[in-house]
């Protein structure tokens, strides 16, 4: 892809026309400034967005978020919506870590009151929340119970004492997507999922202790319970081996299905099935089971975080601000060409960002819009935003999910020494507990884009509105 092939719409919006490749069914709309767009052209992310534009039944445009970077099949930071009647669903457009997502919890604990206990608290969190390669979860269940988890999501956690009512109310979809079908889940997925509920995993998954460094929208921050100078905690995890296996099963199965429905694609990782076919419905049901598994996984982890926090800091409560998915396929209604259309929105590395008044939002967020959580890298700030009407109109109610990588893992390992990085972060007042120094190096702050610039683009495009900025004090990496 070349900058000459991209048309500038305005400072923060760009378009790749359908004429660029013969397989494109819709254009690609990029939300970015020129500098970040040029950075995106350094990898294959925009070629991948062009490939994604080949999916049958697409409506509007394939949307590319400011934090886009190269993935496989779809780019990470890509959004694509397909018509539920005529369109397809693509497991690769959702990703292997189904319902990978972020949860933010907030407290009234002032940073100054926490600082002397922060290292001990982080060590206790590290013990309470299983993390790293091959670690079993807080909860291990038999198949019968796993089925309930897949059908009830965070509701299972509530029934079993791992959640309170507010946790459920302040989770996307109430922590459970209807329509999960256990029969669509393979034995292998079930085996892999049984022992990992309440485990963080490794890679870019984390728990981060932050403080609210700045508030930009006092009213929205107050509704979310975010107060300047107080402690907040973010948690990033997904559906673990269960979701990986569900996606693996269907990407494999769909290799033949795509041919059956005469679907031609430029990359076989994009394989898909019609949403109204037996195969498409089976994947949607299994994907929802994995999404519910992930909601429950984060809820069980959040419960352990809360218990540890309240033991360490008596008299302070850690309440849920929001829990959201950023690798997901959702059936939603959007205005396209002046008409309401039911679509399957594929968000791969993109966060839902519904505007104020949307019926799917919890009561408390009806006036301000959906909280949008955009974590930075472990040495930089993270942002809390709210969804907007512009996002509804431009990106199927979607926004960025993070900073986005600029360095490959290989390059990051070459440039960064994990032990040294830990010391550097400590010198800046950020305490790190990591399962692997190599993994830490791969996730170094310099491996990621400048998060503040990503937010500037989001503000510029109107896909989100800033509420607060969080600064890290301690990080747990799997």
């Amino acid at each position, binding site marked *: 892809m070349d900058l000459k092939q991209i048309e500038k719409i305005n400072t923060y919006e760009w378009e790749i026309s359908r004429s660029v490749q013969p397989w494109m069914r819709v254009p690609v709309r990029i939300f970015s400034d020129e500098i970040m767009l040029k950075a995106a052209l350094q990898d294959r992310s925009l070629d991948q967005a062009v490939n994604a534009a080949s999916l049958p039944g697409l409506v509007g445009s394939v949307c590319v978020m400011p934090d886009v970077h190269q993935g496989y099949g779809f780019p990470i930071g890509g959004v694509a919506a397909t018509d539920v009647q005529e369109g397809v669903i693509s497991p690769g457009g959702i990703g*292997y870590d189904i319902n990978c997502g972020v949860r933010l919890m907030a407290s009234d604990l002032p940073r100054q009151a926490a600082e002397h206990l922060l290292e001990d608290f982080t060590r206790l969190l590290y013990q309470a929340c299983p993390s790293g*390669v091959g670690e079993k979860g807080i909860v291990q269940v038999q198949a019968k119970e796993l089925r309930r988890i897949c059908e009830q999501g965070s509701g299972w956690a509530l029934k079993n004492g791992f959640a309170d009512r507010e946790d459920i109310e302040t989770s996307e979809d109430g922590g459970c997507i209807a329509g999960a079908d256990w029969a669509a889940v393979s034995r292998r997925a079930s085996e892999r999922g049984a022992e990992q509920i309440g485990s963080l995993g490794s890679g870019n998954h984390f728990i981060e202790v932050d403080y609210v460094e700045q508030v930009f929208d006092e009213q929205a921050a107050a509704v979310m319970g975010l107060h300047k100078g107080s402690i907040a905690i973010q948690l990033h995890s997904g559906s673990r081996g269960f979701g990986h296996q569900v996606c693996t099963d269907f990407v494999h199965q769909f*290799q033949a299905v795509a*041919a059956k429905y005469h679907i031609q694609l430029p990359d*076989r990782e994009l394989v898909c099935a019609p949403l109204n076919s037996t195969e498409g419905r089976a994947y949607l049901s299994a994907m929802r089971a994995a999404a519910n598994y992930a909601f429950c996984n984060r809820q069980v982890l959040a419960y352990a975080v809360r218990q540890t926090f309240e033991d360490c800091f008596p008299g302070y409560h850690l309440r849920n601000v929001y829990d959201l998915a950023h690798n997901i396929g959702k059936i939603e209604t959007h205005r396209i060409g002046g008409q309401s259309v039911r679509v399957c929105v594929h968000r791969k590395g993109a966060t839902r960002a519904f505007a104020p008044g949307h019926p799917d939002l919890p009561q408390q967020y009806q006036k301000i819009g959906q909280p949008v959580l955009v974590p930075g890298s472990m040495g930089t700030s993270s942002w809390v935003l709210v969804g907007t009407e512009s996002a509804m109109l431009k990106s199927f109610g979607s926004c960025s999910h993070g900073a986005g990588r600029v360095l490959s*893992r290989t390059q990051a390992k070459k440039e960064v020494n994990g032990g040294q990085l830990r010391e550097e972060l400590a010198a800046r007042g950020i305490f790190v507990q990591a399962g692997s120094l190599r993994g830490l190096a791969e996730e170094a702050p310099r491996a990621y884009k400048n998060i503040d610039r990503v937010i500037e683009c989001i503000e510029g495009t109107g896909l989100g509105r800033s509420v607060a900025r969080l600064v890290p004090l301690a990080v747990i990496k799997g």
Partner: protein
Amino acid sequence: MDAERPFSGFKEVPHKADIALDVFAPNLPEMFINAAMGLYHILGIRKGTTDLEEIHITLDDIDREGLLVVFLTELLYRVEEGRVVNQFSLTIHENHLEADLKVVPVLSRQREVKAVTYHELKINKENGSYHTRLVFDL
């Protein structure tokens, strides 16, 4: 390296979010084995020495690229179970694979691989050497 024999092995190539491997071999079965060794390398596996079992697997797929993904996915699943292949004997005929595998325990591993992807996967044969590029989701 023998000048007559094409390079056989794998090497890591940069990938922005995940990890990619270039795999080379003079024949298809050796390429599959090299890809398996590459996967184990990415996982950072430390193997035990006690033989656990000898297993026979049979796999079929729509083409040889699909067969490679299915084969590696099978090995990845067995790593999740704590088993790593120490000795391979493979035959591949068109889109059918038969393998006799000697399995030992995984003592430890350094990394999780979520999946073996099909992303732009193509097995090429040039000048008597097979080559492919595999992308693994981390």
